């Protein structure tokens, strides 16, 4: 399933210029984080005041942007179209949610100091083994990386070794997230069934309902995005990144040259899942609920669209796509609820037909045509 049309576009950019746009992106992001934080502290009457509602909303968008970077890493640079990345996002979210549930302690509905409410309700007497350790933040932080990472590793181990690729891979990643959704809907799984995990109180001793903590979570999401961006950027600049692009453009040729295609794919796919897990973990305390709906196949496909619209194969494109589409979604569902699906559907069609490189591709095209003249 090699896509010859993509070859020249990314390789055509000289490293200096892409480094320049990276620096530019990083500066903008830092400016955004500082700007919002400062504006949030202005008095409410001030014209530049950013409300707490907006801060949380932006924080949510930033976690989506991290997820988009994760998808772009495997799709834009490795050629793996994952239709199941929301699964890794949701798993990270669930790990964080479990920790937050444990932090509720005896303030729950039934006042049980050890068991979350839904377990008391299901007449469970003790914590299932997979909830053990979830009351320690350090353990939780580790699990946020390990759970999605391990699943991706196992999945990739089998899939890449038996050379499942192209649309087959896309479809089984979709089946994966679908199966997980059905599983998490089951109350017997011990994750709260359809209601999921909610009614969180505090994180690391900070009250999740206070405005400062919300701002803190926003900043944390921004910093996480920054770090993830830097990490991915440096990987893509390394030899590993070059091999990845080679695999995307001509998998068999890369294999014949002697690279271990499977290992490269597995490493990046696992890393991508871990990044998605981090995004999910930051998402949950900000929106206050995690439930199996996050596993819905539609969610994963929506992420792919953010990346497609922003421009795959450019990390900042993915971020732009995530922020832009979600902002449009918020606006549309407020202004014209009925029109949102039409708009989203048209975006899919138009972008794939007319803008295969997304908005970033458009910017880049403009730039290179100017440079040429």
């Amino acid at each position, binding site marked *: 399933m090699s896509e010859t049309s993509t070859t020249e576009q990314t390789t055509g950019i000289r490293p200096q210029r892409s480094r*320049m*746009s990276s620096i*530019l*992106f990083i500066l*903008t992001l830092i*400016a*955004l984080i500082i*700007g*919002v934080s400062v*504006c949030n502290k202005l008095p409410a009457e001030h014209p*530049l*005041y*950013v*409300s*707490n*509602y*907006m801060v*949380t*909303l932006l924080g*949510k968008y930033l976690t989506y942007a991290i997820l988009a970077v994760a998808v772009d890493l495997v799709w834009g640079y490795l050629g793996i179209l994952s239709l199941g990345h929301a699964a890794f996002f949701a798993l990270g979210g669930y790990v964080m949610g479990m920790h937050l549930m444990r932090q509720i302690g*005896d*303030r*729950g*509905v*039934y*006042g049980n100091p050890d068991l979350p409410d*839904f377990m*008391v*309700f*299901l*007449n469970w007497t003790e914590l299932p083994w997979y909830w053990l350790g979830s009351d320690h933040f350090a353990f939780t932080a580790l699990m946020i990386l390990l759970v999605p990472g391990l699943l991706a590793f196992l999945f990739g181990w089998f899939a890449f070794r038996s050379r499942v690729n192209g649309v087959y891979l896309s479809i089984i990643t979709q089946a994966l997230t679908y199966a997980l959704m059905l599983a998490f*809907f*089951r*109350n017997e799984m011990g994750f709260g*069934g*359809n*209601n999921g995990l*909610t*009614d*969180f109180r505090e994180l690391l001793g900070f009250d999740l*309902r206070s405005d400062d903590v919300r701002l803190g979570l926003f900043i944390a999401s921004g910093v996480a995005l920054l770090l993830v961006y830097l990490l991915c950027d440096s990987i893509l600049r390394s030899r590993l990144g070059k091999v990845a692009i080679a695999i995307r453009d001509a998998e068999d040729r890369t294999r014949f040259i002697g690279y271990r295609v499977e290992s490269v794919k597995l490493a990046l796919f696992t890393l991508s899942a871990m990044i998605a897990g981090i995004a999910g973990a930051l998402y949950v305390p900000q*929106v*206050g*609920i995690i*439930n199996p*709906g996050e596993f819905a196949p539609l969610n994963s496909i929506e992420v792919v669209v953010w990346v497609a619209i922003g421009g795959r194969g450019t990390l*900042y494109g993915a971020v732009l796509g995530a922020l*832009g589409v979600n*902002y449009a979604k918020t*606006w549309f*569902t*407020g202004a014209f*609820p*009925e029109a*949102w*699906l039409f708009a989203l559907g048209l975006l899919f069609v138009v972008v794939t037909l007319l803008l295969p490189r997304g908005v970033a591709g458009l*910017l880049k095209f403009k*730039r290179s045509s*100017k*440079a040429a003249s």
Partner: protein
Amino acid sequence: MLSTRNSRRSLAAIAGIGLAGLSLSLHAQDDTIKVGVLHSLSGTMAISETTLKDTMLMLIDQQNANGGLLGKQLEAVVVDPASDWPLFAEKARELIEQEGVVATFGAWTSVSRKSVLPVFEELDSLLFYPVQYEGEESSKNVFYTGAAPNQQAIPAVDYLSDEIGVERWVLAGTDYVYPRTTNKILEAYLKANGVSDEDIMINYTPFGHADWQSIVADIKRFGSEGKKTAVVSTVNGDANVPFYKELGNQGISAEDIPVVAFSVGEEELSGFDTSPLVGHLAAWNYFMSVDAEVNDEFIDSWLEFTGDEDRVTNDPMEAHYIGFNMWVKAVEKAGSTDAAAVQDAIIGVAVPNLSGGYSAMMPNHHITKPVLIGEIQDDGQFEIVWETAGLVAGDAWSDFLDSSKEIISDWRAPLSCGNYNVTTNVCSGQNLE
């Protein structure tokens, strides 16, 4: 160089536009009172919730035509949480913080209520929740105008055992918290009344379950062992049509094994081919076929408001009707829309319900209602076959569950607690800071 500056400018511009757009916040006008309407207008729940949004718009219109409230006009602020649970919380925050609504009418599923609950408690605003639900909750900021399990499930089971002589029970539900809780309460209730374990069959299916062959065959086998059998169904929405069709196809009629449903009302029936359902039962607090003058008026104004002669009314609509009128009366009584004042004033307020009587707000934030059992007719309406002798007060904490039988809820001073354990005298849970 030029190109870099260009792209820098465009990046900055995009960020700038985004920020400017986002920080546009609307300030509440002083001459209106804003009321939030938080129902999904898209996504899977739009089927049920859109009707409730229209109901609220109609009620607010009527109130304005009658001179508004406290000398001001009411203004409905409608948002679309799109059947997306985290979005419910986000939109609730938008309504309260950005739009400055004083009360919100909304949510349908349990998970959407659970999602918005912390927001209403944090920002101390009021939510009127109009749908039958599983109980085990009583928040200072939420008024539950739908039925608690003792206002729907338990009377239905009483009817089946006393009037129909049912001795074997199938508790079939969709796998989520409302059916789980209801079935748990019913199981405890049935056992307390001497029904043995082997006469109870419990079954859960996923949302939108379409292939009912095996389950219906099991029910058929279960019901053919001599004792009169009934199905108590908490099967949700979409899964009902294939369920009833399969019952009909396997030759199980309402006379052999009646099904009493808690989630099938007039609105749902309008999307069904009702022929396989005729004779099956539903338990609600209101039916469109209720014979009362106030109901006729309500139906007339609803038909006029929607401009569609074929529209139906249903139980959650009545809950909004009651809840809205209670809120109006409480605001008038308190002389203010302030949340704390309304919370104080609303307890004890009684307003007409649509079945010709009065419903009152109890100290546990649940209301009193009659319970009706109806048989489905081929025109999609219900023939009322039984009703409770008087009104039933909603019980937040079921008396039939071990985890909650010692818990009461009373939001009046001095107790002011939604989760008070009468044996340990400890108040815990929601709203406890």
